[in-house]
């Protein structure tokens, strides 16, 4: 009898400990971030334009700038970020195990990932789609003509799965030739190992511009066989943190729509437009509602720039990638970037 009591008490104590620690953790990501004074950001180990360590080992890129903007919003300091390079297989574990607070790593937003991996996507920072590149000499005009063709593809990505789906849906019997890294797959394609090369359209454009022996010898086929909305994701355990990251993305978009840039954000503070006043924290208490300083958006725009600036700086026409805005233009310019109203 006594022994049973003891076991019962021990179990109760254990349960109490577990539930207390559980309660302390629910919704605690933002608190923990504020306490430690920096954001842990999971990025790609190396993807041109999105997350690259430059010659001095400093991270740059579109995905990196998103983390910087969030850090600027929370702490007023875009450099309060610690980066964890992650690879395709490791990224979700890194997020769910708490190694990173935000995963900003060219990750495609899909139902499975949103529903079953313990994470939430906060928005889209880059609309991409998967396409094909073929040598002009192959005289292929459409992806539907790739019957029985060998296609070079990088492993561990949705790209590989989309290729299989596309081949099955169109009964094309495509033979994928799978590579671990971008370099290997590129070399194989330009070496004639495969008839076609497939990856996200953004990648195709930059690879053709940078790596082809003669860019004019290759064409990108018109079909996009998938939708690839890339965006940052956070853990499910803290809705406030989720909301904050989501609204930082909207603020960057809203800034571009309203013509606020890192250069003119100081003057814009004296704008008479109530929308701009609310966004920049001149009036209202938008920041406080998110649990951070009212100058959140001001700091993010001032230190990192609006979405358009981030895009042009990292992947735009003046960079080696030379990507057009396309789907990533604001809705006013025929794109899909549409910021929810800050009010």
């Amino acid at each position: 009898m006594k022994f049973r009591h003891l076991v019962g008490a021990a179990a109760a104590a254990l349960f109490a400990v577990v539930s207390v620690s559980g309660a302390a953790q629910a919704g605690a990501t933002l608190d923990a971030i504020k306490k430690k004074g920096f954001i842990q950001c999971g990025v790609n180990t190396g993807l041109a334009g999105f997350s690259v360590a430059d010659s001095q080992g400093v991270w740059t890129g579109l995905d990196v700038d998103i983390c910087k903007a969030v850090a600027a919003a929370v702490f007023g300091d875009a450099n309060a970020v610690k980066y964890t390079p992650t690879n395709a297989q490791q990224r979700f574990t890194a997020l769910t195990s708490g190694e990173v607070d935000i995963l900003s790593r060219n990750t495609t937003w899909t139902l499975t990932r949103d529903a079953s991996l313990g994470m939430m996507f906060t928005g889209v920072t880059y609309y991409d789609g998967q396409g094909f590149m073929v040598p002009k000499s192959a005289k292929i005009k459409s992806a539907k003509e790739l019957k029985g063709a060998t296609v070079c593809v990088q492993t561990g990505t949705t790209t590989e799965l989309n290729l299989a789906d596309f081949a099955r849906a169109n009964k094309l019997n495509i033979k994928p030739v799978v590579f671990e890294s971008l370099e290997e797959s590129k070399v194989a394609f330009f070496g004639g190992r495969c008839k076609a090369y497939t990856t996200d359209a953004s990648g195709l454009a930059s690879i053709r511009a940078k790596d082809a022996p003669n860019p004019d010898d290759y064409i990108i086929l018109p079909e996009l066989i998938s939708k690839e909305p890339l965006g940052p994701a956070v853990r499910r355990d803290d809705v406030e943190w989720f909301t904050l990251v989501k609204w930082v993305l909207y603020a960057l978009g809203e800034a571009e729509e309203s013509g606020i840039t890192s250069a003119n954000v100081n003057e814009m503070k004296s704008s008479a437009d109530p929308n701009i006043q609310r966004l920049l924290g001149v009036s209202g208490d938008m920041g406080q509602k998110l649990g951070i300083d009212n100058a959140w958006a001001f700091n993010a725009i001032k230190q990192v720039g609006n979405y358009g600036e981030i895009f042009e700086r990292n992947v735009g026409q003046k960079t080696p990638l030379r990507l057009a805005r396309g789907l990533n233009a604001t809705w006013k310019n025929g794109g899909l970037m549409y910021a929810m109203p800050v009010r």
Partner: protein
Amino acid sequence: MTMEEATTPQVERPPASVTGPWGWARANLFSTPWNTFLTLVSAAVLVWAVPPALDWLIFNAVWGHVKPEVCKQADGACWAFIAEKYRLILFGRYPFKEQWRPVLAVCLLIAMIVFSCNRRFWRVWLGAVWMAGLAVFGTLMWGGVLGLSPVETNLWGGLPLTLILAVVGVVVAFPLSIALALGRRSRMPIVRSFSVAYIELIRGVPLISLLFMASFMLPLFLPTGMKINALLRAQVAIIMFTAAYLAEVVRGGLQAIPKGQYEAAQALGLGYMQMMWKIILPQAIRAVIPPIVNTFIGMFKDTSLVAIVSLTDLLLATKQAISDPNWRAFFVEGYVFIAFIYFIFCFSMSKYSQHLEKTLRAGARR
């Protein structure tokens, strides 16, 4: 030369056909038709392969700091890529202004390795030297004391990371492997079955799966908030793996020792520890130096697998350097550069093992 001198009887010298370079060539390169054939084929391969390789590597290569556009025009290698990126490749994302610290740390580590290669210093105090050396290495890299700014392990990268993984791997795995090898031959059933189970289990899986377990699975099992340093996790995986392989090598050495040695040691009244330490292990390990060094070399190169779990070792740092879109076309140069670094280390190890074998076998040369 006069007639008189010419007729003076002289010591008969071997005919010119067996001495000198021609004689050497005849004896070694053209002794049989088959050897002649092999020599000609090898010469043809060299003539075919070496000049283009040298052209690419040296004569047509682009040296110094230039823009990538200049490299695009050249036929040879673009060493400007290395000139631009060598600090990223060698030290990863270690803070740029603090990179004198990893330079010092690497020099210290290499100095300690060279120092330890000298047999005169193989004394008990060498262990203490290593403890102190590794402590200094850690202080330099971590910082946080003596006015050095703290640098977390997730910023460590490149050569220091590769070296520390390999060196700590060897230093810890070696004693562990001796214990395991002795355990496997022990008469105590629990010790023996534990050693057998450990060795067979670890040898039964590839290193990469251990690294995956340590890096991806372990964090999911740990309670939220509890984190084990990623570098430490990979280091433990490497140690466990190397220890299992080395244990079998050491066991091979133990089995080569004749039973008489054990009996003689026991007859002298030596206990187990003394017998092993003074009689058996010195002979056993001497017998297996080549396979031990072989394991070390393999393990040194295996450290590059940590790139897969996103530790920025020499290989991943190079990959990061390559992902710069401006320099992306010159990845071959990057890989050649680190291949050269790996070669220097592995070749030195193998040379040292040959030297060690020679000196240790002075008494038993056949």
